[in-house]
């Protein structure tokens, strides 16, 4: 069970995606939606990726989640291109018979997405300039924690 993987410019319909996951008669769904965060004069994000490799890495992450937790379904949709403030960037959703599997698998997938798939964000500002986002050590630590079977560290405030 690999699940549904998509990399697209268009937005996604959360209700339709969750309905598709629940159609198999599962016990519960967990989901995470990443959204473009404002501040510091940011006007939009631009996301670039490595076509082909991205889809393969996302499928590999979905397979890893399915191997580790008892999932009935798994959906990863990641947007690319220019995304306005408040726009959804990524949807991770999982379905399982019992809540613990879906909740843990969703947290695992969003942590791995940040460090394990070839996406690059740049920040676009009101004056038209842009700046590439640097990788964060905290994201690497969160992804690595799953490899050591430790709970991920809390997000910095």
């Amino acid at each position, binding site marked *: 069970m690999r699940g549904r993987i998509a990399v697209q410019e268009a937005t996604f319909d959360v209700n339709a995606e969750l309905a598709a996951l629940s159609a198999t008669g599962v016990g519960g769904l967990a989901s995470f939606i990443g959204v473009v965060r404002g501040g510091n004069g940011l006007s939009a994000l631009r996301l670039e990726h490595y076509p082909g490799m991205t889809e393969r890495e996302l499928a590999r992450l979905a397979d890893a989640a399915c191997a580790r937790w008892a999932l009935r379904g798994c959906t990863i949709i990641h947007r690319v291109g220019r995304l306005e403030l408040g726009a959804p960037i*990524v949807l991770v959703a999982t379905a399982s018979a019992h809540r613990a599997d879906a909740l843990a698998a969703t947290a695992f997938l969003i942590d791995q997405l940040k*460090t394990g798939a070839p996406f690059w964000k740049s920040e676009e500002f009101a004056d038209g300039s842009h700046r590439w*986002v640097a990788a964060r050590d905290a994201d690497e630590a969160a992804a690595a924690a799953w490899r050591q079977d430790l709970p991920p560290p809390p997000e910095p405030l």
Partner: protein
Amino acid sequence: MHVLYFAWLREKIGLAGEDLTPPPGVVTARELLRHLAARGGGYGAAFANEAVIRCALDQEFVPLDTALGQAVEIAFFPPVTGG
């Protein structure tokens, strides 16, 4: 082989990709990176700090010291920032 550049490497070099044949003596991804850096200009700027360069061989993440072997595609890019 086909060489791809992403994010700020693409911008500094001014190309998304190009085809080249690694010269004799270039065995690993790091050696190819240094061969490209020696072209100077945008290449020199893009590859100035090896510590922030990652690569993929035939669309698999690999360390820079990996041998190119029979790979047909290599990509150089900064650490990823998705999610």
